[in-house]
């Protein structure tokens, strides 16, 4: 495939970042199977936030990580610059336990399923983007899953206004940022990660808003997979 470059002027990017966002998700794009050597791979973007996720497995497991009754899920998060810090370790831990809930690990005892996530551009809602990318990479690798997961973030602004799928600017200016992960079976809460302080009412509003948006993410998974399968026929 030919390499494609899009030149974005700095002014345009700033104007886009500063534009008032309405209560919708930013544009979702994915390229499934973007790398050839991995079992599943995806380049996923949510607005300007982009990550690359690949998955391997079920494959051989390191002997000290072996579990006799289920597969070991490993997650590696690579930040854009520098070595992984404790904050990235926490991110890995969240991703790992979220995906462990989704994958039917009991089907592959004594093996490993590994997911590697490379951050390429963090312009808001990075955690949500990582979880969605990881889920798509697992779907691309056809790993058995009990349900799919979709993550959506919101920012609570100083005036109590709630912004869906915040960009970097809104995340920094906001009083709190909440990331919710829902399952595809009955849209229950799989994970919640928050930063900043918020009231119970704001929490309730956020969860209702993100739940609606999560359905759009699930629809996007279906569309991207059917598109890929149509191509392969």
């Amino acid at each position, binding site marked *: 495939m030919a390499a494609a470059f899009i030149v974005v002027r700095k002014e345009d990017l700033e104007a886009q970042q500063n534009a008032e966002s309405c209560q919708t998700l930013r544009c979702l794009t994915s390229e499934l199977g973007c790398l050839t050597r991995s079992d599943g791979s995806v380049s996923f973007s949510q607005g300007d936030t982009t990550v690359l996720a690949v998955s391997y497995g079920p494959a051989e497991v390191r002997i000290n990580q072996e579990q006799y009754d289920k597969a070991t899920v490993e997650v590696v998060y690579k930040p854009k610059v520098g070595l992984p810090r*404790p*904050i990235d*370790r*926490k991110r*890995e*831990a*969240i991703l*790992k*336990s*979220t*995906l*462990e*809930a989704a994958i039917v690990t009991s089907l592959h005892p004594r093996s490993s399923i590994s997911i590697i996530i490379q951050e390429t551009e963090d312009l808001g809602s990075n955690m949500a983007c990582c979880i969605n990318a990881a889920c798509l990479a697992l779907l691309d690798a056809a790993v058995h899953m009990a*349900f799919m997961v979709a993550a959506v973030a919101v920012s609570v602004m100083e005036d109590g206004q709630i912004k869906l799928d915040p960009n970097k600017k809104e995340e920094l200016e906001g009083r709190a940022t*909440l990331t919710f*992960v*829902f*399952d595809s*079976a*009955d849209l*229950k*809460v*799989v*994970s*919640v*990660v*928050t*930063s*900043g*302080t*918020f*009231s*119970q009412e704001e*929490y309730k509003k956020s*969860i209702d808003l993100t739940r609606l948006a999560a359905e759009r993410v699930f629809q996007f998974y279906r569309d991207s997979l059917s598109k890929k399968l149509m191509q392969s026929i």
Partner: protein
Amino acid sequence: MPLFKTFKITQPKEYYEKFLEKDVRPDNRELGEFRPTVLNIGCVTTAEGSSLVKLGNTSVICGIKAEVAEPASDGKKGYLVPNVELPPLCSTNFKPGPPSELAQVLSQNMVDFLTDSKCVRLEDLCIVPGKLVWSLYIDLVCLDFDGNVMDACTLALMAALRNTLLPVVTVDEDSGEITTDVSIHQKLSISKCPVSTSFIIFDKKILLVDPTSEEEDLATGALTIITEGDNLCSIYKPGGTPLTDTQMKTCIDRAFLRGREAERLIEELIDK
């Protein structure tokens, strides 16, 4: 060996189920009941602030050391450097060597706890704007790892911060000489009292508060809620069994109850 002990070792999940059917836990607690909380402050005399927390068997000791440091470019903000240690003495799960993944995640949780709740304003740690600020090294060491270390750590952290006394530092403007007056001490101003409450999900449906390490091993999911007054500071549920909104609401309500309880405990202790 008595029969019930054999049962506990060979079939831990079934053993727990037998108790939970009757809405009670093997250690005589109800499902929503905390273990007895013991709080002690000022136990490390060489530190600026210290505390020891026991939640049942779980013990965490916290010491705060203060050093003067140069501020970063903006000039007014001090530093808070929390670190959680899980040494091999606290549990067989931990080996000597670099910090385990859990210790790193807990340390990061403490950083997030302090930044999210803003219980210490970093500007309050300023001595001379642009020149000198306080850097507080908060070391938390787990002595006995019997579950729910997160709640024990946050409680120890808050108690130690309330106990912290900083010496008065003056800088001679002409010579730039720094003098420390150890006879006068200043209390750290802390306006807020965030409290964390942890839950586990047992067998994909039953919620248990303040889990022991046995319960944590059997858990299918975990949840930590941090409350501060009437506000929420953090809801942290990393994966595990999906929960319905009603279950989440029950947990949040329980967390607020615990928040007020723990706040009272700290207040009473400080007033003494």
